[in-house]
């Protein structure tokens, strides 16, 4: 191998996962740009790569790169936490290739076959046509096998090695994460039943198990990058798990307002989802608290240098703490009450929330993990920010924030014109879409999307180059 610094096979496997994740991240942005262009110029790639296909690739690439980066993060931290080599790493490596190959086939089918006849062969081999989990059934089964293999690696290692609080949380969380996917693997004629269970995958992933995963990764990162006190960090982690699952599991009710399900979900969904921002505030406070505490403790010893062992990664972790609260917490709370959601549900408002929440809650911390891996792979003691890392961080964050504001404005136009005024008909919909404030918002979204994409190019360049840079302490 080219690098001499990674002794652990688990960490080597992690770098494979991170590399593939970064490539898919790029693909996500490319197809997002295609879809954004189509909002401005509807004839762009019409009947070649229609909006529906660009959007499938945009959101599925999002899910896939995050899952890859999450698996990578676990393989990365396992040897550090358990103090042993990951059990069954050979199988883990094989499953990586199976997973990556399956993703490539699914993407090629989405790109070139796109749709099929209305029968089960389409569901099995082309598309399941269910948002975020369009992957055909054969791939579903493959994903379950790969996920179970990953969970087995994690469990066997956790049981054999030192079982820290972080590892315990991850074990419980990842088995729920893998198990929940099964709820999205059946066909029914009843669309209300369909959507009821579809949310078990989408919501319980994104608003419960993924958030807990982020809590665990943040805990690991704080110990690694700051030397934060494990007992304090893990206590926070358990409090976060209580708050996240306590609000997030029944917070699912906010998806059950309008899909044919009974009215009592209004109250349950409103109450518990209104509580969902609280753990995100706690996580934000927690990161800043640990930073201040360890820095203060060091300065009390008369040492004036920063406690941060990896500046770019830590920047992304802090952005995560803030972005999670702002994107998932604030932007989610905006429209979580049924009285508001009646008008905002299914508008660009949701898209605004989706962009900032996925970025703030997940993209940020996973990019932070990429930087931790670059540091480890290159044997760097203290990793500094480079010009490129600062520019890329600013452009990506600014770009996503800009897209979010633009989509929020577009959402307002839709809520008022289409929903409140026109009553959600076909012509009401297009009246709102033709309004000048809506079209301007879409222009701004595209511009901000381009800035995000350019920021990504800088990020990728920095990730490839910074390991060799002379500015770091080795």
């Amino acid at each position: 191998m080219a690098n001499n610094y990674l002794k652990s096979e688990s960490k080597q496997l992690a770098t494979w996962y991170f590399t593939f994740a970064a490539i898919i991240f790029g693909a996500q942005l490319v197809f997002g740009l295609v879809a954004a262009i189509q909002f401005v110029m509807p004839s762009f790639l019409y009947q070649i790569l229609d909006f529906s296909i660009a959007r499938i690739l945009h959101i599925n690439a999002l899910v896939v790169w995050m899952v890859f980066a999450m698996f990578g993060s676990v393989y990365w931290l396992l040897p550090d936490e358990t103090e042993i080599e990951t059990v069954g790493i050979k199988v883990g490596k094989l499953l990586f290739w199976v997973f990556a190959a399956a993703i490539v086939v699914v993407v090629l089918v989405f790109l070139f076959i796109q749709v099929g006849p209305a029968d089960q062969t389409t569901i099995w081999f082309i598309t399941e046509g269910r948002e975020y989990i369009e992957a055909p059934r054969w791939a579903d089964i493959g994903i379950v096998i790969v996920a179970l293999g990953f969970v087995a690696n994690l469990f066997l290692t956790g049981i054999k090695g030192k079982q820290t609080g972080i590892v315990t949380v991850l074990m419980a969380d990842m088995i729920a994460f893998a198990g929940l996917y099964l709820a999205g693997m059946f066909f029914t004629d009843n669309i209300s039943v369909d959507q009821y269970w579809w949310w078990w995958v989408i919501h319980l992933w994104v608003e419960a198990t993924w958030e807990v995963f982020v809590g665990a990764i943040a805990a690991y990162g704080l110990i690694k990058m700051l030397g934060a006190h494990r007992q304090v960090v893990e206590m926070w982690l358990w409090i976060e798990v209580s708050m996240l699952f306590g609000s997030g599991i029944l917070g699912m009710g906010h998806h059950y307002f309008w899909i044919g399900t009974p009215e009592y979900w209004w109250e349950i969904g409103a109450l518990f989802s209104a509580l969902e921002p609280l753990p995100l505030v706690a996580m934000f406070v927690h990161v800043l608290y640990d930073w201040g505490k360890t820095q203060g403790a060091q300065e009390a010893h008369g040492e004036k240098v920063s406690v941060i062992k990896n500046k770019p990664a830590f920047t992304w972790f802090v952005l995560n703490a803030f972005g999670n609260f702002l994107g998932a917490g604030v932007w989610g709370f905006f429209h979580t009450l049924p009285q508001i959601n009646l008008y905002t549900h299914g508008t660009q408002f949701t898209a605004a929330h989706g962009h900032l929440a996925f970025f703030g809650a997940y993209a940020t911390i996973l990019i932070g993990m990429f930087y931790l891996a670059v540091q480890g792979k290159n044997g760097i003691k203290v990793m500094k920010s480079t010009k490129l890392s600062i520019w890329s961080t600013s452009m990506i964050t600014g770009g996503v924030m800009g897209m979010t504001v633009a989509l929020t404005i577009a959402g307002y136009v839709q809520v008022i014109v289409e929903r409140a005024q026109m009553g959600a008909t076909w012509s009401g919909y297009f009246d709102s879409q033709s309004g000048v404030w809506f079209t301007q918002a879409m222009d701004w979204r595209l511009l901000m999307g381009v800035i995000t994409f350019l920021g990504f190019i800088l990020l990728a360049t920095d990730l490839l180059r910074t390991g060799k840079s002379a500015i770091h302490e080795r």
Partner: protein
Amino acid sequence: MANKSVWSDNRFWQRTAAWVTGFASILLIWLTFDTSAQISMGNDADLKNGVTKRVPGPTVINYKISYEISTKRGHEVPYIGGNDGKGGSLFKEKEKFFGRDDYSEKEAGDLLHLGKLGSQAKNCMDCHTLMGNGAYYAPDLTKAWLDPAWGPEGSMQAVTGKSTKEEAMAEFLQHPELYPTHARMMPNLGITAQEAKGLVAFLKHLSSIDTNGFPRNFGKIQGALNGK
């Protein structure tokens, strides 16, 4: 020194996490049983006996469906076969669907099955929303069956050269590229005549589902299609 406080004890918080998660999960599972019973699909006997289901049986396509304010519930609800004036459906008034109003449970079920499969096979939800879920590039289809644009007062029947709502919708679905309603046009997805019929049945059935008043004020102000 005082005893260590329980609030700074990791084991206390670990147990709290386990109990809270367990309790929330059990509550969710219990509610799932209740909700599953309430959203199970009805059948032809329910419709004939005047039993209101949140998700009616497929033979609902034999009936006239409307979406009106229920004074009892304070929002719009779907009425099947007429409004009994007391906040419930009459289940009397029929409506021809492709020339028939006597589809058997099997025939209507097959059409709905084909339509639901079609809605997934053509990735409808990656441009449209259904019950508000999906993508935001094209109109919401929850109550598309009741959209004035497709009715006798709307323009789509004339545009497609058809004399009924269902035929106009089916024609549009097969050749959307011929009937643009906006610069954003639906692509041709290779939908066959039979698939289109299934999709329209799926949309008619969808409009009969009780969505707790979503969308609000549907069609209250009837904008002129293409009137921009």
